[in-house]
């Protein structure tokens, strides 16, 4: 269970992995895999063979060993870990976008949220966490097979009671009439969002918020034009996450990674100046952990346009 909808399931020092639990097998920050624990099963990866039976009874967060002595960590699933694990399967929305969308759509427990398309279900899961325990997310996808996959995933992660997945061409048909005036928030990730804006407006409660995610500025321009009719507070954002690496660096002797320069021969001992002006000068040198931005950052994800339904 990803979300502790049953409060008894929540994490605790005493909560142990049981047969049938979903665990995230963590190898490295960028390699992890969801696995359903099954008494007789084994997991095989580059670290060796892991018997599920060795896992049962251990606390979540434990390090477990393989036959070869390799190890992985067994983590309780969260929407973020799920998203990271999923990112190997399909194109996903990024965590910073997901996070910003949920907050900016003012999604809180009890809300009714409409989403199209479902895609990987990654945003859906975060929306479900935010509306829990009393709200609901209705998500629609054009593709039958994507909907089916999403339903299976939601079942597996234990959030299916909060989510209903529909198959529908929202861009062509709009949202179903049954949601008229009932939605607190609407999220659109469609190639031609402007075609659905009128329908989305009908679904929203007064003052409800809409968000449209688009990769190209032309889509944003067209959406904003359409939005002005019945929406207000139209704002377009972009959010990126810059991540930092931390390394121990020893500069004075020219350390770090050897990047092809000869080891310099600056004197280690700093000479004392006779002037008083150097009082308070910081001592440099010695090995220090330092952060610098990761080189291979994702430079762009998409534009997020928000708008609020006008009050009549």
């Amino acid at each position, binding site marked *: 269970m990803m979300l502790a909808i049953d*409060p008894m399931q929540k994490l*605790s020092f005493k909560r142990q992995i049981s047969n049938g639990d979903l665990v995230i097998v963590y190898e490295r920050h960028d390699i992890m895999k969801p696995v359903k624990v099954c008494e007789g099963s084994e997991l095989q990866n580059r670290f060796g063979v892991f018997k599920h039976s060795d896992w049962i009874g251990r606390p979540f967060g434990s390090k477990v060993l393989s036959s070869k002595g390799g190890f992985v*960590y067994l983590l309780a699933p969260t929407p*973020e870990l799920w998203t990271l694990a999923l990112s190997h399967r399909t194109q996903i929305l990024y965590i910073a976008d997901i996070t910003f969308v949920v907050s900016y759509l003012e999604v809180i427990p009890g809300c009714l949220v409409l989403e199209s398309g479902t895609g990987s279900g990654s945003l859906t899961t975060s929306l479900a966490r935010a509306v*829990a*325990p009393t709200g609901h997310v209705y998500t629609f996808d054009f593709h039958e097979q994507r909907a089916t996959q999403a339903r299976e995933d939601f079942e597996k992660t234990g959030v299916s009671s909060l989510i209903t997945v529909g198959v529908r061409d929202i861009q062509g048909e709009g949202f179903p009439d049954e949601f008229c005036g009932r939605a607190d928030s609407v999220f659109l990730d469609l190639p031609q969002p402007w075609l659905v804006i009128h329908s989305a407006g009908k679904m929203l409660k007064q*003052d409800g918020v809409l968000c449209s995610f688009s990769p190209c500025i032309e889509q944003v321009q067209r959406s904003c034009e359409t939005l002005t009719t019945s929406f207000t507070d139209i704002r377009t954002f*972009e959010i990126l996450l*810059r991540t930092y690496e931390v390394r121990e660096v020893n500069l004075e002797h020219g350390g770090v990674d050897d990047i092809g320069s000869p080891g310099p021969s600056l004197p280690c001992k700093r000479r004392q100046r006779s002037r008083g002006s150097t009082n308070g000068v910081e001592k440099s040198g010695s090995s220090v952990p330092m952060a610098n931005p990761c080189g291979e950052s994702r430079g762009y994800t998409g534009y997020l346009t928000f708008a609020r339904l006008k009050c009549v």
Partner: protein
Amino acid sequence: MTETSMQIDSSSQNPRITWEGCSVLLDINDGDRLVFARLNAGSTLKIGDKKCSLQPLIDCPFGSMFQVEVGQKGPHLCRIFAADADDQTAVLQENEEIQQNERKDNRALVDDNTAQTLSFEDINAMKREGAAGRQIVDALIANSSTYMTKTAFSQEKYKLKKQKKYAPKVLLRRPFTRSISEAYFKKYPARVGFLRMDVLSLLLSVANVSAYSDVLVVDMVGGILTGAVAERLGGTGHVCNTYFGVTPYPMEIVRIFNFNNEICRRIVRFPFSDLSLPEINDPGHSEVVENTMSAEMLSNSDEAPAPSSGGLPKSEEQMIQQAEDPVNNEEPAPSIDENSASSVVNAGKSQQPGKKATKEAITSWKQNGFSSLIIAAPDLDPWTVVQELLPHLSYSAPFAIYHQYLQPLASCMHNLQTARMAIGLQISEPWLREYQVLPSRTHPCMQMSGFGGYILNGIRICNNEVSIKPSSV
């Protein structure tokens, strides 16, 4: 149960409509001023030189727009409807069409504002006669000799400027984490430790704040973190607000949310020392027992400098008082004819958030661990804090630390790695950019908040590799 009913006391109350005593965010003239207020029969707001009662705002839907009108009863706020407000949009769109051709000639334009034939006295006379703000704006336009020679774009700018002055608009906003956080960051960033709205959202996400969680927080950012977590929990779980020393950190911002009693009840506070007292029946995590606070630390806490004369709150009462203070403090007089808002009265009928946690609750958390940990303590060294708190977090539970500086988080991350206390460690910095999207004039906004802070997050791990086996529990 799909209705968003969590934030009000009576379940029959529609949370999208204001009520007497509810807290609101007033957006005056498109973000020029942002005022938090509580709607009571007696509360007033000063806009320009006019003091208006907030009474007309009660029982209106959030999102409603008001304008100051001067009628026979004096100046008052009058609701305006979407249909009326539309003309502005129309003008703007008309503009766009001719915008392109004008670019070239705009350069020759000189606007020296000397062409107004309507005098200051004329305007005052109109006001005395009870003319509406709109009427004054129309008169100003009619009496401007250069108005017709301006480009449509300049005309619109002129009109908006006059409208803001003579017919200010007030937008009624519902206080959510989004709006409260945006307003504080814009008008009073130091109070929330420069914690930007998207960074706050990211803290909640990476710490997996979800229903029924017991979230341990160190909130030295005025209560915005506590409020945001409580909003997400929606009356389930607990916001466990801990503090070092004997004085709780102020959390006046929590009062701005319209939390119902159930939500308030679930915001509890306790000194960190309460968690650290030795506990005999504490089976699962010997580390915690090891890490109990020494007597030295407790006495150290007592020696903590008492809140200075600067007026740090000592009691609940003082804190509530202070809750309304930011309204005044954050008014840096955006335009010279604007004065600060009148202080609004606190209804104070709801339950106080931030009661002291019960002994039973603390015992239970000590035994079970917390489900998440969030630290927003811009003045503390993150490593010093996290090494104390992390042992109280359940295994596999996520944590997130906000800080203004990169280097302390880099050291902290290094130490957590070296001590093998956590995995999935990452330092990140969200970068938020807003765009102006207008026909032929689309580009990123010129002004942006260059900086919203850094986050270090990770997941606590259980290092008792072999010792903890099912049999040993």
